[in-house]
Every structure is written in structure tokens, then in C-alpha cells.
């Protein structure tokens, strides 16, 4: 900790001003910000098509006051720590109030199914029909099952609490890590706020998914490493306990995070060697993590390679094809769902590009400052590498099959970028003339970085809530078509297997609680979308144990992020497929077991 920071933390004895403390006002501001977000989401769920300005104003009411206070010089360590916790939890609450009734993000029902199965079967490794690899990494299901069984609550409530705790761990660990590496809790606080500019911070990174738990664990393990580095010989073993425990938890929770941890530890070991650091080299931990991750993959999750291979080989092929002009580059700010393309308004694009611009300028200035300071701490080198890598991942956004790989990698690399950018950010507000102006410029840049990141990470049309549950004219609550189907399946046919479009299949998993396959598996996507059936298609489904087929005319049913909401006529996402896609099953003929208009369930074994 710098002497300046130490003085700030020791300023307790002074006379207190008459008004409320800044922290109390900031808490109040964050609460008002949340209320604005909830209000805009409510209008959106009502179908009122509200302006997103109010929503972003709510987000900024959380971000800007915290950023302003955290970047001040005369703030105690304890207050900064409280601000960081408030920051993490408030922005997490933005996501929670967006989807207060059930999980609607693409991976959430898949993991909720795993947690529910853990309680039903009193054990883990129960398999998952949509994403089999998740069953081999049961850390999230294990943790959720503990909260579910001890509290009696649903996987939704338990999951929301668990991911909230994980988000708290993430911001606290980042703060401890950055404080230790920089020696300044002022810089650390600022870096945590800048980290919220990561494209996945607001939404994707807090969905109920295994990576949302494993990334905070990874950062906490790194923070423990940074602490161990400066600990005396007596405490080396003490710090090894949380490091080993956290590493084991990462390995059983998420494949990519465990490999990221291996890469980080190997890099650190190499940097220690190159920098001739007198501190103990972390190579034993790198070997331990590698053996553990490899062993787990071989013993408990041997389908990991089958899952990851197409993702990475597809990304490499896509990059190759894009670079050499064999396929068209992906359009930025476009999210494709089936043949519908959702675009982002010009101003929102400008903000996102502005965020990248600010980050790049901050990166250049930060690297320059690191160079000028002759920083030889291994973690600083590591962060610089990460920051440079982040801009490499931006290029992947132009390759159709690689953009998601780049987007996911950016979550890890942004840790380094946030740290590097915090150097010039702090320098910008050093004492001197026009301090107010420079502070305002910094806060405006942070606002652009955070909002730009959120826009880059989540489709513009999906930023606000859509209706899953509404009140009818008499005040009764009714749910959307896919959710009603899922609840009916859970009640009437819980032991059956279904073939369904992506969104419907996820709802059948949770809240339905039954098994459903989707996508390219068994050509289900083709079978559902084509106008004529081929002779082998239905026998193939039956042969694989599927009893029912869910046909959905809504085009958006193949989009797991948009397909579980109420039908609103006239909106782009509610375009319907040709009636022939439904009629072809009647021509076979098959028994129709359930019909809610857009969704029809066919019994694959019910024939004349």
C-alpha cells in the first residue's frame, strides 16, 4: 500500500462533516439507479417500448458516483472496499431485476436442470441432454444443490443467490489483486470499475452458468497468489490452502477456466524465470493445476474434447476463411437469429467504438507508464500481456464462427487491460490545474467504457426485459406459450424425452424438468424447419428414445435468448414459419398431443 493510501486509511480521527457521508449518498444513488432500471424493464415487459435512455441513466447512476468517489485521493481503504462491493452487487442486481421470474439466458436452464437433477437423484453426473459436457463439471450444480437442499428453495432462487456471491467474490478479489500488485487501493478501485467495461460484465458474466462461478474463483486464486508472493516464509503454506482449494473448485466447475488457470500459472512461472524474481516460482502450482485439469477431463469429463473441438476448429477455420476472403466477414453490431438480423442504433455503435477507442488510448498510455516505471513485477507483465491480447480478440469479432471465442476470452484478458488502463486514468486526475475538468473527462470516459462494453456484449434488442409472465385483465398471472408448455410437460409427461427447438427445449429442461434434445443433434433443427420430411428422420428420433416432438412456428424459437417470451404481433422476432413446417407431421400422420397455436406437440409413437 502506498504511503498516500495509508494516510487516507488512517484519517478516522478527524471531525465529521454535518451532512450524510458520501458512501451513504452513493448507496442511495445506486438504489435510485436500480429503481430506474426496474421501471424501464417493467415498461418494456408491458410492451411500452420505452426509451433505453432511462435504463442507461439508471446504470450510470450506479457507476458514475462510485467511480467518482473511488478515484478520490482522500478515501479510506475500508470505504473503497465497501464501494467495490456495492458496485459489484448493484450491477448484478440490474440483471436480476431484468429476469425476476425465471432463467431466460441461453445457458441458464441447462444448468438449472443439472442442479434439479442433483436433488432428484441425490447425486451428480446425471447427464444433460442439451449440453452433455456440463454434467462432467458439476461444481455449480453441487453448490446450488447445497443451497437448494438447505433452504428448500428452487434452483432459480438458489442460483440467483449463488451467482450474486460469486459476483461479490469477483469484485473483492479483483480489488485485493490489484491493490497487492499496484500497491495502491485507489488504483485498484479504479481498475475494478474499469473492469465493468468488459463486454460480459453486465449480463453474460452473471447468468446462471458454470463460468460465472469459475471466473471469480480463478481471480481469487490469482489474488491469493499475489498475496503469497509477498508473504513471509511462515505464511507460504497458509496461502497455499485457499490456492489449492480454489484451484480444485475451478477444475471441477468449468473446463475453459481451468485451462485458463493453467495458462496463467505457466505464464507466471515463465515470467518469474525471465524476470529472475527472488520469490518462489509458482511452477509447482502450474503442474498441479495442469495434472488436475487433465486428470479431471480424462476421468470425469471425457466428452470435453468432443465439445470443445468443433468450437475451436470452427473458429480457426472461420478466421482462415475470413482472412483469405473465402467467407464474408461478420458485420459488427449485428446479432443473427435464424434469418433475422438485429441491428444496433448508430449512437449505440458510436458509444461502443468510443469505448474501444478510450481503452486503446488507455492501453498505450498504460504500457508507456509501466515501461517508464521499469515495473518488474511478474503480475504487471502478465497484465500487460493480457491487455495486448484483448485487442487481438477484437479482431476475432469479424469472423462469424470465432466471435464468441473472442468474446469469451476477453473476459479473462480484460483483467489485465483494466489494470493497465487504470495507470493513465489515475495519472489523469493527479493534482494540478483544471482538476475538475480532468475528473469529469475521466468519469465520462468510464461511463462510455461501461455502457459501450454492455452494448458490445449483449444484443441491443435484448438489453431490456421481455414479458415471460404478465397479468391478464382480471389480474390473474399468465405465462408465455413456451413456459406453459414446459410446465405442462413437467406435470403430465416428466419422464418422456422431447425433440424441440432451442428455446423450447431449454424451457422443457427448466422449469419443465423433463429431457429434451435440440439443435443439430439427430437433425432436429432440420426436421423442425423443413417443409417435407425425409423417410429416415422420424424413425431416427424414435430409435434414439425420443417420444415426442415439439413443433414451433415461431422463427424465434431457435434463438434460446429470445424464444421464451410472449408473442407480440408486428415485432420482428415474432415472424412465423410457413404452415407447411407444421402440417408435414399431420401428413405422416402423427398424434397431436398438445396444441397452443404456435406450438404443437406430436407423439412420435402415436400412429394409426
Amino acid at each position: 500500500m502506498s504511503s498516500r493510501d495509508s494516510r487516507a486509511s488512517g484519517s478516522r480521527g478527524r471531525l465529521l462533516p454535518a451532512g450524510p457521508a458520501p458512501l451513504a449518498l452513493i448507496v442511495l444513488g445506486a438504489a435510485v439507479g436500480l429503481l430506474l432500471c426496474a421501471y424501464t424493464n417493467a415498461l418494456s415487459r408491458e410492451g411500452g417500448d420505452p426509451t433505453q435512455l432511462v435504463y442507461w441513466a439508471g446504470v450510470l447512476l450506479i457507476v458514475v458516483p462510485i467511480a467518482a468517489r473511488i478515484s478520490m485521493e482522500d478515501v479510506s481503504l475500508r470505504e473503497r472496499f465497501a464501494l467495490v462491493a456495492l458496485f459489484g452487487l448493484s450491477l448484478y442486481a440490474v440483471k436480476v431485476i431484468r429476469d425476476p421470474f425465471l432463467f431466460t439466458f441461453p445457458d441458464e436452464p441447462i444448468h438449472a436442470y443439472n442442479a434439479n437433477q442433483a436433488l432428484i437423484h441425490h447425486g451428480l453426473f446425471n447427464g444433460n441432454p442439451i449440453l452433455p459436457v456440463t454434467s462432467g463439471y458439476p461444481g455449480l450444480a453441487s453448490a446450488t444443490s447445497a443451497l437448494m437442499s438447505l433452504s428448500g428453495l428452487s434452483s432459480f432462487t438458489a442460483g440467483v443467490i449463488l451467482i450474486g456471491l460469486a459476483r461479490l467474490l469477483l469484485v473483492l478479489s479483483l480489488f485485493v489483486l490489484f491493490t497487492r500488485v499496484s500497491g495502491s487501493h485507489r488504483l485498484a478501485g479504479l481498475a475494478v470499475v474499469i473492469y465493468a467495461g468488459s463486454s460480459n460484465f453486465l449480463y453474460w458474466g452473471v447468468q446462471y452458468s458454470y463460468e460465472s462461478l469459475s471466473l471469480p474463483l480463478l481471480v481469487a486464486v490469482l489474488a491469493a497468489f499475489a498475496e503469497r508472493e509477498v508473504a513471509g516464509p511462515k505464511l507460504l503454506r497458509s496461502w497455499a490452502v485457499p490456492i489449492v482449494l480454489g484451484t480444485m473448485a475451478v477444475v471441477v466447475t468449468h473446463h475453459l477456466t481451468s485451462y485458463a488457470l493453467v495458462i496463467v500459472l505457466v505464464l507466471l512461472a515463465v515470467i518469474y524465470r525471465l524476470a529472475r524474481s527472488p520469490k518462489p516460482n509458482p511452477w509447482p502450482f502450474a503442474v498441479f493445476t495442469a495434472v488436475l485439469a487433465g486428470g479431471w477431463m480424462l476421468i470425469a469429463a471425457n466428452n470435453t474434447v468432443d465439445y470443445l473441438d468443433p468450437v475451436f476448429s470452427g473458429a480457426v477455420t472461420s478466421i482462415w476463411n475470413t482472412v483469405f476472403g473465402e467467407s464474408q466477414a461478420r458485420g459488427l453490431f449485428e446479432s443473427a437469429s435464424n434469418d433475422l438480423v438485429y441491428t444496433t442504433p448508430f449512437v449505440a455503435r458510436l458509444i461502443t467504438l468510443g469505448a474501444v477507442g478510450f481503452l486503446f488510448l488507455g492501453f498505450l498510455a498504460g504500457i508507456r507508464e509501466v515501461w517508464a516505471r521499469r515495473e518488474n513485477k511478474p503480475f504487471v507483465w502478465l497484465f500487460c500481456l493480457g491487455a495486448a491480447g484483448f485487442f487481438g480478440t477484437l479482431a476475432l469479432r469479424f469472423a462469424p464462427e470465432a466471435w464468441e471465442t473472442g468474446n469469451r476470452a476477453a473476459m479473462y484478458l480484460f483483467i489485465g487491460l483494466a489494470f493497465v488502463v487504470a495507470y493513465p486514468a489515475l495519472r489523469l486526475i493527479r493534482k494540478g490545474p483544471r482538476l475538475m475538468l480532468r475528473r469529469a473527462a475521466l468519469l465520462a470516459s468510464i461511463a462510455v467504457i461501461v455502457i459501450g462494453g454492455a452494448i458490445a456484449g449483449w444484443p441491443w434488442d435484448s438489453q431490456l426485459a421481455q414479458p415471460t409472465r404478465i397479468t391478464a385483465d382480471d389480474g390473474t398471472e399468465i405465462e408465455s406459450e413456451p413456459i406453459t408448455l414446459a410446465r405442462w410437460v413437467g406435470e403430465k409427461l416428466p419422464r418422456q424425452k422431447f425433440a424441440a427447438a432451442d428455446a423450447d427445449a431449454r424451457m422443457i429442461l427448466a422449469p419443465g424438468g423433463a429431457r429434451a434434445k435440440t439443435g443439430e443433434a439427430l437433425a432436429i433443427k432440420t426436421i423442425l424447419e423443413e417443409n417435407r420430411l425425409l423417410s429416415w428422420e422420424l424413425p431416427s428420433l424414435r430409435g434414439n428414445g425420443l417420444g415426442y416432438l415439439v413443433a414451433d412456428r415461431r422463427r424465434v424459437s431457435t434463438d434460446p435468448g429470445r424464444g421464451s417470451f410472449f408473442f407480440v404481433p408486428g415485432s420482428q422476432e415474432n415472424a412465423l414459419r410457413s404452415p407447411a413446417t407444421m402440417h408435414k407431421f399431420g401428413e405422416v400422420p402423427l398424434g397431436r398431443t398438445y396444441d397452443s397455436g404456435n406450438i404443437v406437440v406430436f407423439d412420435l409413437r402415436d400412429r394409426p
Partner: protein
Amino acid sequence: MRGHRDLGWVCLAAVVAALVAALAPWDVVRLLAAVPLAVFLPGYAITAAAFGPQRLDPQRLAMLTLLCGLSLLCLGGIVLNFLPGGIRTVTWAVLLVLVVLATARAAALRRGRPDGRPSGWTRPRLRGADIACVVLAAVLVVGTLVFAYTPLPASKAVGYTALWMLPSKNSADPAVKVGVISAEQGRQHYRLEARIGENGKPKRYHLALDPGEERAIEVPFKAPAGTKRHVVVSLYDSDRPHQLYRRVTTWTAGSQPGEG
């Protein structure tokens, strides 16, 4: 544990929380016990055992408590998976209490005799204005949550009706169970027609359902042994009585086992 008040409190809290989580009939009360029992108490005890006499500042203590607590949750289920009983309320409660007791004991042994130094933690000084702000913020947050969790009308959202049909399990004679679920925006009147066989005379039912209401009807039919009957159930909306609204069909010989 004598002389280490924090460890004593942690052990006591773990036992009480486990009992509340296992025995209390109210989910909210159980949740208030479950979160500390699952995360904070084991996390604190493990951290205390790892660091022994070393005092940690609140920042590192908070991070390590969360890290160790969440890590234990990720790993605990895997341990329970291979033990008799598996994942249940009791086994989780017992595992967590055992971890807390064992690590608290280890922490007490590592710490040795209490050194009598006061804890580094000092309570923050709150004034009336601060308390007022925080209380107001808490009220706003509660209001926000209530607001967010209250479903609102959505006039543009289209309501719908679901019709379903499954073989009846309870009937001695062949029968199908037909259900109508209304998720329409207002009260709706329907005509249901069930036709058994190609030339059968339709049985008609008239229904009126409020939003969110479900009605199930058992439709019996006669089927000669070994033959399948084609059952077609059609639903008509009273606003458009001649236009088919929903249809379900089956070829059935009667009850089929294993449904539901």
C-alpha cells in the same frame, strides 16, 4: 476453542443454522440459515485454520471466506456423491457442520493461547443522516424488488389457449383425458368437440375459462378389443364458432401405462 470467541461463535452458529435449515418449515427462515451455513461459516473456519495466529485485514478475510466457502460448496457435492445418502439436506448439513467444527478446532490449535490483543475490526461510525440515507436506500431497493417481481399487464402480448389430450389412467373403460388451459387476456368461452372414430358422432362440451384457469374432461369411448380408435378433439372459440381454434388427435385403444 476456549478463549477464541470468534471460533466458538462460528461453531455454535453452524450447529444452530444446520438445525434451522433441516427442521424449520419456512423457506425464508431456512434461507437465512442456509447461506451462512453453506458459505460464510465454513469459509471463515477454513481461513482461520489455514492462517492460524496470523491476523488478516477485513479485505483479505472477506475474500478468503468467500473463496473457501464457495470452493467447499463446489467440492462438497462431489464428496457426498460417493458417500451413502448422497446429496440431501441432512448430508449437506452434517458435512458443513463437520467441516466447520474440524477446521475451527484446527484453527484453535494453530492459534494456541489467545494473545489478548483486541480485534483489528472497528465498527463504522454511523450518524443519523447516514442511517436515514441507508434506510431510504433499503426502502427503495425493497420497492424495486417488489416492483420487478410484480407481473404487469401487457396489452400488446397475445394471449392463447392450449388444448391437450392424453390417455386416461383412472378410467376402467377406454377413455382419453382432454384439458384446456386458458392463457387468454380475458374470460373466454369455448366449444369442445370430441369425435371418436371416422364416422362417430361428436360429443360437445361448452366451457368458460378465466385467464390462468385449466379444465380437464374425461371422454370415454368404446373400442373393440385389439382395435385402435382415432380420437379427434377440436376446440372452437366462441368469438369465431366456425373456425377451428385448436386440435389434438390420437389413435388409442384405451389406457396406456407409464404416462404421467
